[in-house]
């Protein structure tokens, strides 16, 4: 028992003595301290950038907003065009192949039996030659390998000319052509009569699929002669029968041949640019020309491309020559080239100089003979593709057309009145200017059709009443001069104010947006400059709405709302503030009374509580000119009880509701030196320990 008590005692003493700190009671203190201080000018109520200080130090709100614009880039899409030509070997010219064969009289007579022996025996003397027949077939080899090795034809001609140098007529001459390798027949023909000393040509059309090889055999299947009767003729056994063979006008299916140099394509075309203008010239801002070639031709292909109507800085027209190397046997070869067209000038009047939006080009292709046998088939080709890629104009000259652009039901967000949630405001004057800035070398017209002021908070709309509605406002063309040219835009301002419209009411509606309709006319008077319009890529017509509100106003409970993130738990992490008074002391240098309410919102933006007071920040006193004499000091007291503290601890956002009321029925001006000094003072009960 005693040991247990001893242990308890020792343990107790150890625990107590080894504590880090002596614990003390909690208590509360009354802490009185400034928290934040600020000097607020009008720039804290409206955006700084729209405040303009007038010469008398009064302030105006100057608000410029964009209504409508277009530039060349909006009007014309980048130009893309692909120009392709596929060239096949059926377009190729193999040329005319000529081979010859001669048969002497002596050679032929050897095959002519007894009559032939008589002729040979009579060489050098004149005899009457009797009829000759029964000569067996004669074969002669013809070598055309110097021209081709083999040809497979779709069509073609083989012309055979017989020149009879014998002293006797030849009759019933039957001849044929065969390929030596396989004795396949190319053609067979019969010549009924070839008088002595004359020639005759036989034109043989070759059928599709005919194969002609370089090693040919000509066969004289039959040759006869009626003789000379009783007429004696001089016998010379060296007299010749010449056979000339001409192979021509071939349409090839396939060929293994030596192809000669030849142009096989040469074409000039107009290339139109699709757009709504009628441009006579254009300078390219950016874009490329891509050329690609794909060839299965086993020979060198040379091509040429030029755009005679395109020049760079006054230099020679665009022209390029490129070579596509021979394709490997049974395969293909490709190549491509790219050219930057930035800065190039295009004449867009076409080849004949009378067109618009059109340039012309020329493309040609040829084969460079290698002098060697190459094999081509009708399936072989070279495919050339010319691509204009993303051509964007820097400047266009011509006639920009006559157009009417209607803009309807467009919304213009207006943020100068953001935060106003309640109350009335009356401006002494409002000046609204429609500003049209024309940087295009074409006449324009601007017509305001409708403007509606929309306050979505109040659900209140006000339409503009103005005599100018629906009437076009001419905006003359811009001009350019110098080199490089400098553009002198035309700026047209159309001013409306409270005296010629209800624009003040429009803005006193504190709109969050303006809804408008407008119409823009291009060249309302037509092509008055005979294609002298111009337009640059970055330039166009810009229409803006300029609002100037002199800050001379009457405010009645005009309430601004502003929300800021505020987590009270980050300030009072240990929940030590238990209540007190929040004091807002203000030295008000503005000519209006102000009240301030704080609305506490939780994370879901649900209202938890409102810290309000009936105290006001009283307006500064004014002199006879309605100028502030000196700031007026007031203090607003916000009692914070335990319920408020509970709400504060769940607060994630603060909404400041500040209401302004001018203390006079006259319009009062706001000057640049007006300010509101505010100091937030905490008079809190603060629990020292949690």
């Amino acid at each position, binding site marked *: 028992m*005693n040991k247990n*008590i*001893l242990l308890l*005692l*020792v343990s*107790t*003493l*150890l625990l*107590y*003595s*080894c*504590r*880090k700190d*002596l*614990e*003390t*009671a*909690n*208590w*509360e*203190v*009354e*802490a*009185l*301290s*400034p*928290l*934040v*201080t*600020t000097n*607020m000018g009008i720039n*804290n109520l409206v955006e700084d950038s729209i405040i303009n200080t007038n010469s008398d130090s009064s302030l105006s709100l100057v608000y410029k907003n964009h209504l409508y614009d277009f530039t060349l880039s909006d009007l014309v899409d980048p130009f893309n065009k692909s120009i392709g030509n596929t060239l096949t070997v059926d377009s190729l010219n193999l040329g005319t192949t000529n081979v010859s064969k001669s048969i002497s009289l002596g050679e032929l007579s050897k095959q002519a039996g007894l009559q032939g022996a008589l002729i040979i025996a009579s060489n050098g003397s004149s005899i009457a030659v009797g009829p000759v027949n029964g000569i067996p077939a004669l074969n002669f080899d013809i070598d055309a390998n110097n021209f081709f090795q083999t040809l497979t034809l779709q069509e073609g001609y083989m012309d055979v000319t017989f020149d009879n140098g014998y002293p006797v007529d030849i009759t019933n001459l039957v001849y044929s052509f065969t390929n030596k390798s396989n004795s396949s027949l190319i053609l067979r023909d019969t010549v009924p009569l070839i008088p002595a000393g004359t020639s005759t040509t036989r034109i043989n059309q070759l059928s599709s699929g005919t194969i002609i090889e370089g090693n040919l055999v000509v066969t004289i299947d039959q040759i006869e002669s009626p003789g000379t009767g009783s007429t004696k003729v001089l016998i010379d056994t060296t007299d010749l029968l010449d056979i000339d063979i001409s192979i021509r006008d071939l349409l090839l299916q396939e060929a293994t041949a030596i192809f000669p140099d030849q142009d096989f394509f040469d074409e000039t075309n107009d290339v139109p640019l699709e757009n709504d203008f009628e441009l006579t010239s254009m300078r390219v801002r950016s874009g490329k020309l891509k050329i690609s070639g794909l060839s299965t031709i086993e020979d060198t292909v040379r091509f040429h491309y030029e755009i005679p109507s395109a020049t760079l800085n006054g230099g020679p027209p665009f022209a390029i020559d490129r070579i596509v190397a021979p394709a490997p046997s049974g395969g293909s070869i490709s190549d491509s080239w790219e050219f930057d067209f930035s800065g190039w000038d295009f004449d867009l009047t076409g080849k004949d100089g009378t067109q618009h939006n059109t340039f012309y080009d020329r493309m040609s292709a040829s084969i460079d003979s290698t002098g060697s046998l190459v094999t081509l088939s009708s399936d072989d080709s070279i495919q050339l593709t010319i691509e204009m890629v993303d051509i964007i104009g820097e400047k266009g000259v011509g006639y920009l057309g006559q157009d009417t652009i209607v803009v309807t039901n467009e919304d213009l967000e207006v943020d100068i009145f953001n935060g106003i949630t309640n109350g009335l405001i009356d401006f002494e004057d409002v000046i609204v200017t429609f500003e049209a800035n024309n940087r295009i070398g074409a006449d324009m017209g601007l017509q305001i059709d409708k403007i509606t002021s929309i306050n979505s908070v109040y659900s209140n709309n006000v339409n503009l009443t103005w005599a100018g509605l629906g009437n076009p406002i001419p905006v003359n063309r811009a001009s350019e001069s110098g080199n490089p040219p400098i553009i002198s835009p035309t700026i047209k301002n159309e001013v409306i104010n409270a005296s010629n419209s209800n624009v003040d009411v429009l803005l006193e509606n504190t709109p969050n947006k303006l809804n408008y309709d407008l119409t823009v006319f291009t060249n309302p008077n037509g092509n008055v400059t005979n294609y002298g319009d111009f337009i640059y890529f970055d330039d166009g017509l810009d229409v803006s709405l300029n609002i100037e509100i002199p800050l001379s106003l009457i405010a009645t409970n005009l309430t601004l709302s*502003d929300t*800021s*993130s*505020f*987590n*009270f738990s*980050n*300030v009072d992490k240990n929940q030590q503030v238990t209540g007190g008074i929040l*004091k807002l*002391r203000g030295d008000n240098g503005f000519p209006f009374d102000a009240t301030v309410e704080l609305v506490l919102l939780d994370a879901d933006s649900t209202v938890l509580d409102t810290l309000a007071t009936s105290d006001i920040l009283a307006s500064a006193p004014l002199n006879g000119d309605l100028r502030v004499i000196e700031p007026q000091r007031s*203090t607003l007291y916000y009692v914070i009880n335990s319920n408020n503290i509970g709400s504060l601890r769940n607060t994630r956002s*603060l909404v*400041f509701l*500040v209401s302004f009321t001018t203390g006079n029925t006259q319009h009062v001006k706001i000057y640049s030196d007006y300010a509101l000094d*505010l*100091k*937030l*003072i*905490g*008079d809190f009960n*603060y629990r*020292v320990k949690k």
Partner: protein
Amino acid sequence: MKKALWLFFTLSVSTVFAQKADSTQNYKDSVYFYNTSSKLQIDYHISIGANTATMGALQSFFLEDFLDDNKKEDLTKNLKSENKFGIFTSIGGHYQTAIDTIELKQFIGFSLNAHYRNLYYGNLSQDLVETILFGNKRFAGQTAVIGPSSYNNYRFTEFGAKYHTNFKGKNTFFTAHVGANLLLGHEYKMVDIERGNLFTETDGEEVRLDIKLEGHQSDTNSTGVFDVNGIGASFNLGFNAEIDKKHIIHFNLSDLGFISWNSESLNAVADTTINFQGFVIDNLFDLTDSIFNPKADSLENAVYGQTKGKHTSSLPPLLKLGYTQLLEKKGNLKAISAYTMYRFNASYTPYIEAAAHFQFNKSHNLSPSLSFGGYNRFGLGLKYMYSAYSWQAIISTNNLQSLILPNNSYGIGVFVALRRNL
């Protein structure tokens, strides 16, 4: 609960031991730790006091959950220009070899001790105490003079060894010791406001602080009970001289040492005047919570630059001088004694105490005392030692009326120990 704990450790120990008396004990052991035999002791000591706050008010401060205005008024009603306070706690053990007192031959002995100690002490100006307890609004339109003020807190463990020796003269018996302690510093806080004036504008529009201070704090990220943030050493020495077996003179000097705190310690100095008129913001409507903490930090930096670095602090040394006259009467009154004590650099008022020592039999020793000083005012003390077999239990207090009439006393010291002769 805290109150029960308080009462438990101050009162209950006196009823713990009821064992057979050890005839070897004598009344000298009730006077001072006389080296008659080897001993093992565990002890606990707490001393709490404030020269201007009653024990009742202090009890409220430490034991109540919440101080209402009445309690705060109790704490402040006696405030003076200097308001000293001190709280010292110590718990640990002690082992000591014996010195032969029978043959009275020269003897060399040693002792070992280990204690976990807490020291809080300081001296606060009246306005600072009131500002702490009531807030600065009480001083709206006035200047609260918050300096000179100081606050110190040490928490450390001490491991010590002592060398003992004695000498025998013709009519004297002289014992002396010298010791050294290794100190493991756990925590240290010190603020010394040399000059401090806090002005609060009537309506709170401005707070102006004119201050010159020095402050140090050990690693704030290492505040565990046994986390070590500093190393140090302390020394002690003392003697008891018994003359003619009638007079004993005591001398003891302890806590003569220092602790070197590591480089994670925070050190701050300030000598500046700050006019605070609120954090400046551009627009009240942009008021967010996120502006406060950075701005508060920058304000704090503007008041005092705070840097990390090593710091060495010295312990407040304790000097004790005493005299005991042994009485050879056959009655129960065996001795009378008086001593004075002073703790340097600790806002300490010199302490004096006179005591009478009674021995009723071999088991019961009782020493009533009368004291003044320290962090206390007058105190009526009582020490009781019960001996049984080889055990001794000791409980003493220097201010009995704190237990009985806390609202009329200004502090208390309690010492309890359990000792065994080996």
